């Protein structure tokens, strides 16, 4: 962990661009992203920390003629070093040094939500509280005296309804006022003995004269030390006079522990929760008992007897939506492209460059490449993300996780991983992007690898078009069974091979909340734009390279080097091996291309693939095609989500697995 403030390149650039910087902090599911989406426009950048998958979103916005930077921290319950999201939230906050932090709290669950603002005050952050979801609190009969809440905490409080944009102008005004004012931060006051321990440790820190980590105030560092915080202890270990500081902190912790029968970090957490509860009870009044109707209905989603059938329906709907709506959109987009755009591009390119190799190669990139993206990634991503947004925003995603956790656990994953795995059956690209619902890098690598082994709709098309048609439906089912068994085995094995272990599940279950269309559309757009930015260049460049290889006739040069593998090991005709390479552009291309190349190679009689491949060969061909790296778009997304090195490793693994399975199948399975 670096200790100087401001050392993340993306965050630094964002800092330099704006005059005022605000950060949004809050627990998960309190409407923080709605608020962020409402405040900001389309231009959102994300910042990652090496080795961490949780992102921080950065945007700029105009308010009353001022250029304002807004940073959306990951939703967390606290800022510590106990989990990836907490670590990232805190580090980003320390790196960005915002002029004010807006803590978004859920008015319906004020007690639990005030913990984080208290911790932010402990860190000496200038704070404004957005008391969100006041409409829901009102409906459930809860009234909150926000003026009194502000007085008790010593910070401004603005009631908001983020999904409808209510109170946000006022919030911005107050936040900017707070940012302008700077300094003079209010501090929570805990029990006297804790305060004394903090004060004496802070005194020592000031006297030691050592530059404090992250430019934090002494009180903040003292609290972190008493909380046994890894980062702060690491700083003290290397600071001048650090030994004395550590010794003093240890003694003070022991004193607190002795007095209260529990470790100092737990006592401090208890003090914060206690203070939060005390403040909440002073400002909250229940004017009538809330109706439990919605609550009772929502419990059906987690009760096994009703939960599993409902989950089955939802997963079928998700899959069907992706399969049919995605497919329809894909047909529409590619149809539109082929009818209205493609002819003009062909005309233009061939008109300028002539009918030669250069022109035709370029067309692979700018025509076939774009068409591939329109056919594979884009339609499915749009459909899937809209559906995922519904699952996320209603809070149903956590019910899914609850119900499927025991099964996913055997693969080292959490219940949440079932969503990407099911989505993978439609298209691997959004599925891999959906692994973001998982918390740790380890889980995301595991889930991404497994997603790559889930046959997507394109691969299903090949299995149906080749195996079902020429070998029989039993063989097609066989392909699926083999792939499922290999996927399960790969997950099981990877879970044992990857360092670390699966962490236990600790997850808040959210009450039902009606989703907000505006937020969902905007989020879908951001994710979609992210895909286009990263994947399109890769898809276009990849297509261009394949085009050059194909159009220059270089493709036939691969026949000889591939022969031992394709003909020797897999027992396939060389021409089939070539199509497997090209199918990396779009998996369903494999079959189409197989026929084209076969005709070029063997003559017109090869229009029917049974003319040059037997049933066993077709089976092997489809199996290998299903198992190896899904497609160029998937590689691009893998690289974006888990890094190039890991993305290529996963790709390499699937190739090896495909070759192994193909070779073994060729030898063991006879038709």
């Amino acid at each position, binding site marked *: 962990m670096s200790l100087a403030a401001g050392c993340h390149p993306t965050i630094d650039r964002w800092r330099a661009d704006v005059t005022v910087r605000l950060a949004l902090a809050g627990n998960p599911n309190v409407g923080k992203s709605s608020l962020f989406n409402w405040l900001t426009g389309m231009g959102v950048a994300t910042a990652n920390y090496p080795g961490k998958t949780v992102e921080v979103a950065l945007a700029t916005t105009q308010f009353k003629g001022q250029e304002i930077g807004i940073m959306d921290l990951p939703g967390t319950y606290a800022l510590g070093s*106990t989990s990836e999201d907490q670590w990232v939230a805190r580090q980003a906050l320390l790196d960005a040094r915002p002029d004010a932090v807006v803590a978004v709290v859920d008015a319906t669950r004020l007690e639990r939500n005030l913990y984080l603002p208290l911790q932010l005050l402990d860190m000496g952050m200038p704070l404004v509280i957005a008391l969100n979801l006041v409409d829901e609190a009102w409906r459930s009969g809860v009234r909150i005296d926000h003026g009194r809440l502000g007085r008790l905490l010593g910070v401004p409080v603005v009631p908001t309804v983020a999904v409808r944009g209510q109170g946000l102008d006022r919030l911005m005004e107050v936040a900017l006022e707070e940012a302008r004012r700077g300094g003079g931060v209010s501090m929570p006051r805990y*029990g006297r003995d804790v305060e004394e321990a903090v004060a004496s440790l802070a005194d020592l820190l000031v006297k030691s004269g050592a530059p404090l980590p992250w430019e934090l105030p002494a009180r903040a560092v003292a609290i972190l030390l008493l909380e046994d915080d890894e980062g702060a202890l690491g700083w003290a270990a290397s600071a001048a006079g650090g030994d004395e500081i550590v010794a003093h902190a240890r003694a003070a912790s022991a004193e607190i522990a002795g007095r209260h029968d529990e470790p100092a970090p737990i006592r401090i957490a208890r003090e914060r929760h206690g203070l939060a509860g005390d403040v909440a009870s002073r400002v909250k009044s229940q004017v009538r008992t809330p109706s439990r109707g919605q609550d009772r209905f929502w419990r059906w989603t987690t009760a096994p007897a009703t939960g599993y059938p409902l989950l089955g329906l939802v997963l079928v709907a998700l899959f069907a939506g992706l399969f049919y709506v995605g497919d329809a959109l894909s047909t529409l987009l590619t149809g539109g492209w082929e009818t209205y755009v493609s002819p003009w591009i062909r005309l233009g390119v061939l008109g300028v460059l002539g009918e030669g190799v250069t022109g035709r190669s370029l067309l692979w990139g700018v025509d076939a490449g774009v068409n591939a993206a329109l056919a594979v990634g884009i339609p499915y991503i749009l459909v899937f993300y809209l559906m995922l947004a519904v699952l996320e925003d209603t809070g149903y995603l956590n019910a899914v996780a609850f119900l499927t956790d*025991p099964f996913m656990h055997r693969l080292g994953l959490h219940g949440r991983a079932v969503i990407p795995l099911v989505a993978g059956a439609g298209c691997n690209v959004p599925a891999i992007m959906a692994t973001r619902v998982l918390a740790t890098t380890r889980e995301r690598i595991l889930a991404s690898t497994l997603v790559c082994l889930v046959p997507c709709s394109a691969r299903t098309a090949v299995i149906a078009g080749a195996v079902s048609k020429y070998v029989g439906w039993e063989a097609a089912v066989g392909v699926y069974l083999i792939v499922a068994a290999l996927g399960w085995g790969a997950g099981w094995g990877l879970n044992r091979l990857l360092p670390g272990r699966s962490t236990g*599940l600790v997850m808040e279950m959210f009450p039902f909340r009606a989703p907000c269309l505006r937020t969902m559309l905007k989020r879908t757009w951001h994710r979609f734009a992210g895909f286009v930015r990263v994947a399109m260049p890769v898809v276009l460049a990849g297509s261009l390279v394949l085009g050059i290889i194909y159009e220059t006739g270089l493709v036939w040069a691969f026949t000889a080097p591939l022969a031992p593998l394709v003909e020797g090991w897999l027992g396939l005709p060389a021409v089939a091996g070539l199509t497997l390479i090209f199918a990396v552009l779009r998996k369903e291309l494999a079959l189409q291309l197989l026929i084209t190349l076969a005709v070029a190679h063997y003559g017109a009689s090869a229009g029917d693939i049974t003319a040059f491949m037997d049933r066993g060969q077709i089976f092997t061909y489809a199996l290998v095609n299903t198992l190896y790296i899904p497609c160029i778009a998937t590689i691009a997304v893998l690289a974006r989500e888990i890094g190039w090195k890991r993305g290529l490793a996963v790709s390499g693994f699937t190739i090896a697995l495909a070759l192994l399975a193909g070779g073994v199948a060729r030898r063991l399975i006879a038709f």
Partner: protein
Amino acid sequence: MADGGRLPEAALLESLDAVYRLDREGSATLARLAKRLHLEEDDAKSRVRDLEARGLVRAEGPDRLVPTAEGERVALGLVRRHRLLERFLTDTLGLPWHRVHEEASRLTPVLADDIAEALAKHLGAPATCPHGHPIPSADGTLSHEEGTPLHRLRAGQGGTILRIDREEPELLKYLAALGLLPETRIEVEEVGPFGGPILVRSAGSRYALGRKIAARILVRPA
């Protein structure tokens, strides 16, 4: 005990409380007691002699102090008073949070038994102090409880978190941030089938806890 059940003087009670706590932490020795009370060892020794004379503490082995049965009863009475006072100072008087623990400590030794009971009645017999620690009942004791692992509870059953098993400071801290601290009331809403997670409700929020984690949370079933 003298008039109206007034307890012995403040300094002695403070010492008894310290012996009781040190004993629960591991073992109470004279040196530790002196350090805890910020006293010279000789002064601590004279306090211990007083406590022994009143039959509240006895020496066990060469250097270990243990509260007697009577001493434990008195010490628990002190805990009860202290926590009741904390409730009173927060809920009724609206004293600022940071002064509550300290002021309650100051008032504890001078509070008579019958006044403590009147206070409990006035407050509606609260179950916990504002920090969430349980208030011992007037006659009851707080003994070391074994606790039941959370995953053994049935759906619909409630309980109080006793402690988090095994030394897992990170898990403890994570759960603490969520508010799942020892002495927190929870209710099991659902037990996931096929060895799935446990769904618990606490202070209006619901949490799913994996079996492995639930097994490490020891509760006192209600």
